[in-house]
């Protein structure tokens, strides 16, 4: 079938100048979609493409989707983070602030440095994933989860170490 080349035509063709025929063609398209959806609703099936968000969720998130962050832990419960501050330096919007300290275990074989506080400000985070890419110990990852992000106050968007640490059963 020959494709219509609208961008080459300067004027409407004779057939198109009779407005009503083209209008009738457009009305037929919407009317047929309406009747199809009405039939689906009347026979009990879901006649819409909408995902009813709080009750239904989409299952086709990409595997490398960048959602909320999580700080991973070793088997003994110690966070993998060694407070090297590479993520703080590379963050484009300077949302991460780390205070480094000495590990409480004197003979820690993993590392002598541990983050005393790890503040991630979601108010300015742009979810780029640079902090995940540059971490030398895979201590910070981004999950598929974006639930409960909106808040009533801006201060509540500042997540501290205890909010970001993953629990033992997720490790």
């Amino acid at each position, binding site marked *: 079938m020959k494709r219509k080349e609208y961008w080459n035509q300067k004027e409407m063709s004779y057939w198109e100048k009779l407005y009503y025929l083209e*209008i009738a063609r457009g009305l037929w398209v919407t009317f047929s979609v309406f009747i199809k959806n009405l039939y689906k609703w009347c026979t009990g099936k879901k006649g*819409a493409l909408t995902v009813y968000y709080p009750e239904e969720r989409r299952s086709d998130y990409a595997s490398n989707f960048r959602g909320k962050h999580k700080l991973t832990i070793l088997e003994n419960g110690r966070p993998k983070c060694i407070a090297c501050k590479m993520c703080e330096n590379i963050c484009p919007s300077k949302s991460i602030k780390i205070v480094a300290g000495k590990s409480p275990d004197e003979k820690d074989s993993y590392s002598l440095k541990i983050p005393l506080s790890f503040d991630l400000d979601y108010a300015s985070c742009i979810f780029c994933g640079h902090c995940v890419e540059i971490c030398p110990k895979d201590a910070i990852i981004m999950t598929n989860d974006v639930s409960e992000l909106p808040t009533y106050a801006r201060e509540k968007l500042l997540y501290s170490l205890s909010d970001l640490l993953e629990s033992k059963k997720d490790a």
Partner: protein
Amino acid sequence: MIADLVVTFVFILFAMVMLLGLATLLTWVERKLSAMMADRIGANRCYVKIPLINVKLIALGLFHAMADGLKMMSKERFIPKDADKFLFLLAPWIVFAPVLLMFALIPFGGIIYPEKIFGSFFAGKAYLMQIAPLDGGALIILAISGICIIGVVLAGWASNNKYSLLGSIRAASQMISYEVALGLSLLPMVLTYGSLDLHTMIVAQQGSMLGGVLPAWGIFLSPLTAIIYLTAATAENKRIPFDIPEAESEIIAGFFTEYSGMRMALFMFAEFAEIVIISCVFVVFFLGGYNLPYWDFAGSFPRLAIVLWPTIFFIKVFIVSCFQILVRWSLPRFRYDQLLTFGWKFLLPLAMVNITVVTLFLWLVQKHQ
């Protein structure tokens, strides 16, 4: 004398309830219809908790229309500082009142004899189910529909806002250009049926043509006239595709930019009530009014006719209103110069050619008889 007043009062009550109720229902129908045409479902989350049973009642989204009305009633009533206060407050009513007046001329039933049911209070009189049975019905409808233009211009002028003024001037030029085509499109039907009275037209559409296959409705006698009428009436109503006065993305909200709360709701309600009026006039002129196509039941069931005539009439009106909503959600908007070109250079010559053809046809038919 008192019997006449009682009957007229009952008709007025019935007409107000049906008109305003149908206009409110159409806001819900528009939401659902537009949603189903777009593969989604419309508003369906407004619930009312029934207190003792602890059940959340969602009536397919009907409560959203109620919530809209309540919310607009409780909004702050705003008048701009330098606006002409009297005209600003008067303008919504000038747009709304003629719409209600037009319904007085439309017959939603035939001739009834109430003494058969209600006894000797109505001593032997026959009433036509029409609030104002005037002789020049079609002409008066056209005259009243021209008053809405004044309201639109007043609303734009009294707002002291350049966008409102632009919107109202565009509205005025659009409405007067399509008013001519509207009048000229009703003229062939007046010639065909031979009178201006609306009840005579409905009576003339009983029976069938083409040897009993099609009912003798106006839309089968001259379909081009029906299409021209519907186009010109949609342009009078300022609906898409002739949406320039309230074009949302071009001039904010057109002539009702500065209105908030219930006054804005009056404008929108006048638009929906006018959809119902346009459908009523269409049904009377072209779709045979309150009669069923092949079966004249008024002779066989005279008492049932009182209930059945308005029911059939409003079902037909509902279908034509749904068609208008389908047109609104399918088509894009005309540009302003395209709109005026369409009105004066395409529709008006078409209407005149239509009149000439119908007149010739009627003369030929009369010559053969």
